[in-house]
């Protein structure tokens, strides 16, 4: 047993940050180029900006998703307590857990960004027949579900603070809750993509709404618990 040994995770996290930044910039550039192509093609085909209509969705949504995938984790990281001396010193379990969650997060962010770009490519190559297009977006939804399962599965391994004032029992509860929430919704999303055409859209929308409502509800409960004077 080596409980007292500490690992400095700072170099790993710095490498992870650089890797994430490089992937973010690459994906954003590709997505913006794809947006420009869709915009130009749309303008050429329809004659005016006002006539672009539904094309604004792939033009704007993919770059916005990619930007959010970068900003979201940065905002979350900012909300976390800073380690003393700026060094992330952890025991071996926490170091392993951190590496697992960071890697799963990287796979998730890259995968979702790639799906957003793939969606734009699908619009550019709109020569796909209806049947192929149908199965393409179904496959993308299944892949999205699998990415969620992979990330949600790793999430409970994220280290919790052990200081009593930070309520480790409460942190454990919410960490597990979010892990299960993401995995179950990932599974539901993947299964929803296999439903018949008449119900598939409503099923996917229901899963996404359920995830959003429960995530926000969990966050509200978390801060309510955190602010309550009751000790954990």
């Amino acid at each position, binding site marked *: 047993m080596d409980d007292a040994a500490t690992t400095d995770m700072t170099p790993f996290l710095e490498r992870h940050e650089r890797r994430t930044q490089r992937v973010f910039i690459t994906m954003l550039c590709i997505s913006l180029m794809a947006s420009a192509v869709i915009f130009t093609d749309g303008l050429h085909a329809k004659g005016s900006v006002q006539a672009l209509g539904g094309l604004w969705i792939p033009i704007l949504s993919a770059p916005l998703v990619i930007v959010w995938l970068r900003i979201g984790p940065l905002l979350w990281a900012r909300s976390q307590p800073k380690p003393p001396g700026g060094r992330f010193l952890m025991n071996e379990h926490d170091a392993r857990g951190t590496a697992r969650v960071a890697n799963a997060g990287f796979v998730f962010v890259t995968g979702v960004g790639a799906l957003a770009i793939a969606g734009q490519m699908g619009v550019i190559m709109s020569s796909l027949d209806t049947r192929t297009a149908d199965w393409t977006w179904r496959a993308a939804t299944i892949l999205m579900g699998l990415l969620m399962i992979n990330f949600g599965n790793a999430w409970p391994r994220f280290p919790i603070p052990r200081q009593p004032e930070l309520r480790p029992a409460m942190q454990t509860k919410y960490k*597990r809750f979010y892990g299960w929430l993401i995995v179950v919704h990932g599974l539901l999303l993947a299964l929803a993509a296999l439903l018949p055409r008449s119900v598939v859209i409503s099923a996917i929308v229901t899963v996404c709404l359920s995830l959003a409502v429960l995530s926000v509800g969990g966050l509200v409960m978390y801060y309510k618990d955190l602010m309550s004077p009751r000790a954990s």
Partner: protein
Amino acid sequence: MSQVFKALADPTRRHILQLLKSGPMNAGEIAEHFAISKPTLSAHFAVLREADLVGSEKDGKHITYWLNASVLEEALLAFAGALDLNVKAGRMAPARKHSG
């Protein structure tokens, strides 16, 4: 993964994991729930640590343990608990009470 199955096969270890679901506990607090000797309990902790299902940290005289299981491993824990598995020597048998 075989280490995870080995760890989850024992009802005492499953009970420890169930206790840790409510938050980190020190070895003494966990021991209060079992009528088994400290060396036996330490052996159970060693198996759980080896499978990476629990994390531990020494703080002075106390060792604090916390749940370090992924969602899939928690699901396996629930599944093994529901079936009351007690796999020993490569065969399945009904689980005994938590006597170590």
